[in-house]
């Protein structure tokens, strides 16, 4: 078993991470908060290489929610990148978006979803969408590579135009489910 098999990452040929990056640029996103996920690794590299984006690596995802509130106070657009387990760390902090009507788009790579191998990912992965919705987040899912760009654009538009928390869940089916040779 390869170490890289422990995490799900898109194939090198997949171009949807680049499409997401182009959308973040088109929508003038200046602050990118994240806790790394293998599924976002290519997008993170693109953001790090961009001089106009401030990439902030967090110790826990809820920090990113608070940071998005501060960014908006100061007139900058932000986004939070995380894996589905990180959504659980954000729950109470998402109150900020509802209370203040703050744009908070989140791009979530799913685990514990389609063809998961790691039992520890399943409880939060299965709860990700209900938990976000319980906190007033508008959620859409992309389970095919060709859906990702449209879903992410809707998530950005909805957040910035209507002032709320929004999320695209990028299904494990598109990212690549790892099975450690047990399939």
């Amino acid at each position, binding site marked *: 078993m390869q170490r890289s098999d422990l995490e799900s990452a898109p194939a090198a040929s997949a171009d949807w991470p680049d499409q997401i990056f182009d959308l973040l640029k088109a929508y003038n996103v200046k602050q990118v908060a994240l806790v790394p996920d293998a599924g976002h690794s290519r997008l993170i590299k693109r953001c790090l290489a961009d001089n106009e984006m401030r990439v902030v*690596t967090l110790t826990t995802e809820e920090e990113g929610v608070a*940071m998005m*509130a501060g960014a908006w*106070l*100061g007139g900058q657009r932000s986004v939070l990148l995380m894996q589905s387990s990180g959504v659980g760390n954000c729950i*109470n*902090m998402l109150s900020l978006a509802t209370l203040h009507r703050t744009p908070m788009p989140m791009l979530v790579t799913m685990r514990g979803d389609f063809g998961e191998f790691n039992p520890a990912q399943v409880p939060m992965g299965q709860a990700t969408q209900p938990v976000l919705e319980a906190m007033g987040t508008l959620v859409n899912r992309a389970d095919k590579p060709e859906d990702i760009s449209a879903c992410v654009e809707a998530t950005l538009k909805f957040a910035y135009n209507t002032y709320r928390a929004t999320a695209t869940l990028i299904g494990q089916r598109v990212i690549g489910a790892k099975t450690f040779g047990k399939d």
Partner: protein
Amino acid sequence: MLSANGKLHRRPLVGAVLEGRGDMAVIAGLGASAWDITAIGDTALNFPLWGAMGGAAMIGLGLAIAQPERAVLVITGDGEMLMGVGSLATIAVQAPKNLSILVLDNEHYGETGMQETATGHGVDLLAMARGAGIKHSMLVTRPDEVPGLRAAIHARSGPFVALAKIDPETLPLVLPPREGVILQSRTRAAILGPAADLE
């Protein structure tokens, strides 16, 4: 400014720090810190929190990055800072010059009935800040240190973290607006101008 037991009174301390604040934006952690900044004077550049426990410092970071020329001060309690203690590491790495954090350490969770926090048992939040990589820090226990504290906050040579040991007193409530949309909108307008509401 000192109480009978030799600790700083929180409101005169906050008042002295905010004296001549100019266009400084101030985020206050939930509870007593929010009442303190409101007692000193509620302005559009105050962003008092009603919740989001553990998030005050990171709201400060997002704002400080967005507005690098403006001094941003986070005033918060020891309990609130302990809940978001990891953000000290995040902030140290980002190293915004214009961000200061003032922890009002009464060694208690004041708002919920004065239960003890860890700082009353030897946990040193300033040492944690230094360990996180915050290079500019200050412990404040006496009134004669307050002018230096104020100067350090206004100097914008941060990230700067100060911790003031304060009296665990319960003061009269002085409440800011509770409506979150008003709080956000007024601060955005003060920082970005009236067009902020059309963004």
